[in-house]
Every structure is written in C-alpha cells, then in structure tokens.
C-alpha cells in the first residue's frame, strides 16, 4: 500500500482470502515479532474449520484478528476511554488509560483481546505504526499466498476496495451487529 495522500482521512480495512490461505501461520509469527507480543499470547491466529460429512468434506482456513468494528462494543463499554476508534476507523487502546478492568474483553464477540503481561489490555492494532510509514501491517507483508490485503475503503482504487467490489464477502458473526472491517473473501 502507499501512504495516504488524499485529504479525507483513510478508512482502513483488511480482506482475508480463505481460498488462498494455506494456514502456514506466517502472519501469526510476523505479528509476534513485529509487536513484541508476550510468549504464549497472540494478536492474530489461524482457524481451520472442517464441515460436512465424510467423505464429502470442506475445509476453510482463516487468519483472524481484531475486526476493528464500526460499532465496536469494546469501545462502548470502556469506562476510561482507553479503547477508542481513531480517525482512520481502527480500534486502538491507550495503554496509559487502561485499568485492566476487562470489560472490553467480555464485550468482544470475537475474543480478540487479552491482558498483556504488563497489565493493560492488548490486541491487533492493524500495525498503525507501520501504516504511518506507508507500509502494510506485518501479517499482510509476509503472507506468502497474498491472501491478506490491507487498504483504504475511501479509495476506490485500493486493493481492498477492488476485492470487496469483485468478490463474495462475509464477515464473522454478523449477528453480533458490530459491522466488522475484517472481510473474508470466499
């Protein structure tokens, strides 16, 4: 991706192509290394879902993380404003304001958050420190099958906008009513 140039703030989202993913977990390892995730914890993870009845089976592999929801329940329940939606529509955590009350953890339908060993709640940030430098999030940058794409929904030419226009798209637990911005292409 390229650094944002338009005047309107970028609205970031991620697409994950479950037809391309081979479940190699490179995204998981890249995230751990990039964000110094404590041992035993993870900000993103791979899910393999097998459906059907033998011998007619289907397998879906997904790389999952925080969905950076438009209607983020974690932000709504946070008593201190530590969880917030930034100007690019991503959900972030201000560590200095977090008390570790864990209301956001209970409120997240995707169980995407955890308590960092230093006491604050932590999760995927969409690698905004990399995005600010014009780079893709670590998970996207290492994906060997290019099943992950990251970009600006306000830019019709971005890879995520084009994929969302061309492909059949689902989100996780739409019934939760959170309007996720991690889209799964099938």
């Amino acid at each position, binding site marked *: 991706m390229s650094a944002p140039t338009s005047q309107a703030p970028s609205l970031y989202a991620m697409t994950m192509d479950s037809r391309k993913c081979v479940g190699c977990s490179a995204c998981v390892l890249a995230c751990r290394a990039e964000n110094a995730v404590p041992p035993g914890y993870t900000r993103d993870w791979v899910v393999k879902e097998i459906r*059907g009845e033998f011998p007619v089976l*289907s397998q879906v592999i997904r790389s999952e993380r925080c969905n950076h929801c438009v209607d983020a329940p974690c932000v709504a329940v946070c*008593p201190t404003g530590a969880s917030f939606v930034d100007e690019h529509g991503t959900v972030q955590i201000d560590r200095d304001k977090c008390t570790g009350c864990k209301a956001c953890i209970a409120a997240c339908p995707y169980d995407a958050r955890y308590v960092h060993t230093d006491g604050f709640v932590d999760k995927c940030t969409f690698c905004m420190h990399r995005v600010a430098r014009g780079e893709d999030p670590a998970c996207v940058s290492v994906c060997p099958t290019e099943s992950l794409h990251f970009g600006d929904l306000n830019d019709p030419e971005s890879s995520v906008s084009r994929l969302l226009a061309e492909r059949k798209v689902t989100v996780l637990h739409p019934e939760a009513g959170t309007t996720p911005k991690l889209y799964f292409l099938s």
Partner: protein
Amino acid sequence: MNTEVIEILHGRTNPMIDPTLHAWGWEVPVYLFLGGVVAGLMILVPLLELRTGDKSRAFQHIPLLAAVLLSLGMGALFLDLEHPLHVYRFYMTFQPTSPMSWGSWILILVYPALVLGWAGGLADETRSWLSRLPGQGLLQQLVDLGLAQRRTVLWATVALGLGLGTYTGLLLGTMAARLQWNTAVLGPLFLVSGVSTGAALLLLLRGEKDRSHLLVRWDSMAIVVELALIAMMMIGFSTGGAGGHLAAASLLGGPFTPWFWSLVVVAGLLVPLGLNLMELRHRMAATLASPLLVLVGGLSLRFVLVAAGQASSFALLH
C-alpha cells in the same frame, strides 16, 4: 451436503481467553453481590423511615455498615483490576455508553449520601456519646446538615440505591458478546435481588418488631418479582434465536443447571418465600433461616450468571 461443523482447529490459546473466557473470577460476583446488598439497604432503610414516620434506633448505624460493605466490594473490584495503579482513570472522564463509568460515579455519590443519612438519623443518646469524641465540630456540622435536609437526603439515598442496584445488572446486561447476559432483565433482576438481600441483612440484625414484619412483607414481594423476572429472562431466551437458545440451554440441562436451580431458585427464592409466608400467614416465629438463604441465593445468582455469561460466547454459534 451436510454443512454441519465437525471440527474446528483453533490456533489461539491466549491465557484467560481460551478455551473459555474467564476474565472475571470471584471478585466481580462478590462486588455485584455487596453492591446489591448496599443498594437494598439504601432503598429500604430510608423507605422504612418515610413509611413509619420515625427513625429506627436499631438501624441507626446501617448507613455506616452500608459504606463498609460497599468499600469491601470496591476492594474486591480493585483486586480484579489488572493495572490497579491506573484506578484513578475511572475518575478522569465520564463515558456515557459505559455502565462501569456510570457505576464509578454513582459509587462516589453514594458515600456522602450515606454519611449524611447516618448523621441525621442518629439517636439523641448516640449523638451525645459521639460528641465526646475528637472531631465533634465536624460531626455536629454533618448532623445539622443531615437533620435540616432529612427528607432530601432520604430520597437521594433511595434514588442512588436504585441507580446502584440497576447498574450492577446492566454492567453484565450490556455485554452483547455474552449470550447469557443478552437480556435487559438483568438490570431489574439484580436491583430486586439487591432489595431482597438488603432486607435479609436487616432481618438478620433483628430490628424493631413492627419494622421486621414490614421487611418480611417487602422481602416476600421482592422474591415474587425476582421469580417473575427469572421467568421473563427464560422466555426472552427461548424466543431469542440461536443465541438465546444456547443461553437457555446452559440453565436448562447445561453445566450451570444444578447450581442455578438448587442454590438460586429453590434454596435462595422458593424456600425463603415459603418460610416468609408461613411467618406472615400463620404467625410462626421468625428464624434466621429465611434471611440466610436469601443471602446465599443472592450471592449464588451473581456467581452463576457471571460464570455462565463468560462461558457463553458467539464462538458457540457456528
């Protein structure tokens, strides 16, 4: 083709999150219980005075007891914080969509109401005894203010008690991600349970007989309303789609069934209701059994719902 999920291999093993969420341990249900009891005391004691028209000598120190119990509850909550040094952050902001933020500010307002209610409700001899202690000037000021604004303080205490009791339930009820908590009934349910447990504590302390009689009647009414709210909660779950069905299932045959029905419904509500009715209808002597059971039931209600809620996630809906 049958599209039923036959296996999910999950690569996430975050402590406290997987395989089942257990972010909140004993601290939160204990706080919710003590908050409910205090809410009950804040509603019942002023209403008793407003109803009977005179101050209860036996209950004159109840506001102080309420402050102590609330402090114990807040202490439990403090222990639950993963970053306790940041506790002051609750009071650097107000977040209108966060029940926890509402609760933090309600708790701050509760203390002055309790202190003024206590100072204005002291019996004459208690006041003269306290006047021999150091700092009596401040006490006299509190007593003067408490007496001058007695009705305002009493009604403010009732209003804050209603807020405190309701918020303890809404705290869970607004966590839409937990199927078991997806019901607005939790607000009134925890409030009414708080009134019942508050009445139970007052009955354990054995106040004046006429007031005890009134408290048993109020406790019985609260228990009946609680049973009705639990029935509404179950009806709501049964009509609440797949998520509601899963929530109902954990209480109807699932892992939390024995605790919920034995400790909460039978031992905590039906048996004390029966004992209360026998006392009221047949003039049988009051025992400590009914209030003790109500308190056990109220504590169990919080423990069961906090645990069942955490175990009920959207991940169960494939």
